[in-house]
């Protein structure tokens, strides 16, 4: 019980309060840095755990021949190939510091097989994934973006202004309005109606104000949750209910 719950609880509490302390007392900065160093080591170790988990999950899927096992097999093959090439630095050449030794070379050294996989495998694949969003957004815009009520109409109006204000169409459509705000209230009002200015106003005023309110709310929530964890009131992160 002590090893499983009390010691982790005390460790979390001590490190948590230490990090808060470092924010207010510069003399304790180095202690905080040491604690964060432990976190960085754990984060690196977590990558190993994550990789192990990926292998186990996909191996189980392949061995059970469960639905989509072919994709799991591809994931495993890709994982092993990239891991072996990357870890063993296959095809990498020496660096300026140690010309005869490839071990200290950059993992993505230009011209190496690992670089080739990155450049001609990963880059186009991930770029394609993101590019596909445009197609789905276009389809959703046509099918689902309806002015069904006041809120939806406001959202639609805002989307219209921002979509057009982000490209040259915005300038072109409202080019007849004065480009210079001038000195009079009327000319400033007309200038503010230009789509590029309306877009900027939406981003700078209602959007920023709303987001700030949400951010402050979230921050307050984090403070209260963190305090509960640090004081040991909330122990759910330790696993089973207390």
């Amino acid at each position: 019980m002590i090893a499983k719950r009390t010691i982790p609880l005390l460790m979390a509490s001590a490190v948590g309060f230490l990090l808060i302390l470092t924010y207010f007392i510069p003399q304790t900065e180095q202690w905080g840095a040491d604690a964060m160093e432990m976190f960085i080591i754990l984060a690196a170790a977590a990558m190993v755990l994550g990789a192990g988990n990926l292998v186990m999950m996909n191996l189980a899927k392949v061995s059970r021949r469960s639905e989509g096992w072919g994709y799991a097999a591809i994931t495993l093959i890709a994982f092993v190939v990239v891991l072996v090439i990357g870890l063993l630095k296959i095809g990498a050449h020496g660096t300026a510091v140690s010309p005869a030794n490839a071990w200290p070379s950059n993992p993505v050294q230009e011209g190496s097989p690992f670089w080739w996989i990155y450049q001609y495998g990963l880059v186009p694949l991930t770029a394609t994934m993101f590019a596909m969003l445009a197609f789905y957004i276009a389809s959703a815009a046509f099918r689902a973006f309806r002015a069904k009520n006041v809120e939806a109409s406001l959202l639609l109006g805002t989307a219209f202004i921002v979509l057009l204000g982000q490209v040259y169409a915005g300038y072109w459509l409202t080019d007849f309005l004065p480009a210079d705000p001038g000195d009079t209230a009327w000319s400033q009002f007309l200038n503010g109606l230009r789509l590029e200015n309306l877009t900027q106003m939406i981003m700078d005023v209602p959007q920023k104000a709303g987001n700030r309110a949400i951010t402050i709310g979230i921050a307050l929530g984090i403070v209260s949750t963190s305090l509960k964890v640090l004081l040991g009131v909330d122990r759910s992160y330790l696993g089973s209910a207390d």
Partner: protein
Amino acid sequence: MLNYLRNLDRRIVFLLMGLAVALPILFKLSFPEPVPEGSQPYHVFDQIDNLPDGSRVLISFDFDPGSQGELLPMAMGFTRHCAQKHHKMYFMCLWPLGEPFVEDAMNIVIGQEYPDLIYGEDFMSFGYKPGAEAVIKNCIVDMKTLFITDSRKTDLNKIPMTANIKSAKAMDLIINISAGDPGTKQWVQYAATPAGIPLVAGCTGVQAPLLYPYIPNPLKGLLPAIKGAAGYEQVLIAAYPEMGAADIVDSKYSSKAALQRMGPQFVAHLLMVSFILLGNFIYFYDKKGGA
């Protein structure tokens, strides 16, 4: 006709969107990109440009290939601007797949366009480090226990640029190019605010609304998505016309990459607006019993 539109096959929508993006690229369609005075590209430009030549700038490439379409032009723009001003550039990345972009910035942009700059004296790279915000937090306390060597495995004490630097507090400016977490928000929380280091950033379109609340303090300037990058390129070329030279514009990392990408964005946005209008026209027509 209306019935056809009502049940429009989604593949037609996909095809139209594909054409809206592909045709402007194929025909190199481009439009003027006016940058209003006092807008974000000017804020970002001024932060970098107003620093005395040779200032120390930490540049973090926190993105991966998925976001390179939006972020790479501004990343290379930042690199060019700092190189032009002879600022000392300290590159790093918190995303594992961001490191090749750092290498390209050093080897291709700096290496080909600013051959007089020397690695270790004018620019260097810490490389990638796992740990996200923990890395940022430790950067402002002690960089040398965090990194030990640069990305080329040279001891930091043997590199002229880093020999006398203890932490990121020695930097005059931090530039962050961010595709998510860890990114600009973490640099605001763990570096710019506690250490008081000025920060400018470039981010993806979806991130921009979340980062606006940090402007103007501690975020001194923000380039939101490709539109922000295009504005920044425009301001850069106006200030340094040599960056608009044909060989740089036609190079792998063109100095007008973002401006060129505004063409497809223009047509795609118009198509989106048309889809929304058409969808709503059908909706209201049906609602009034037109069907």
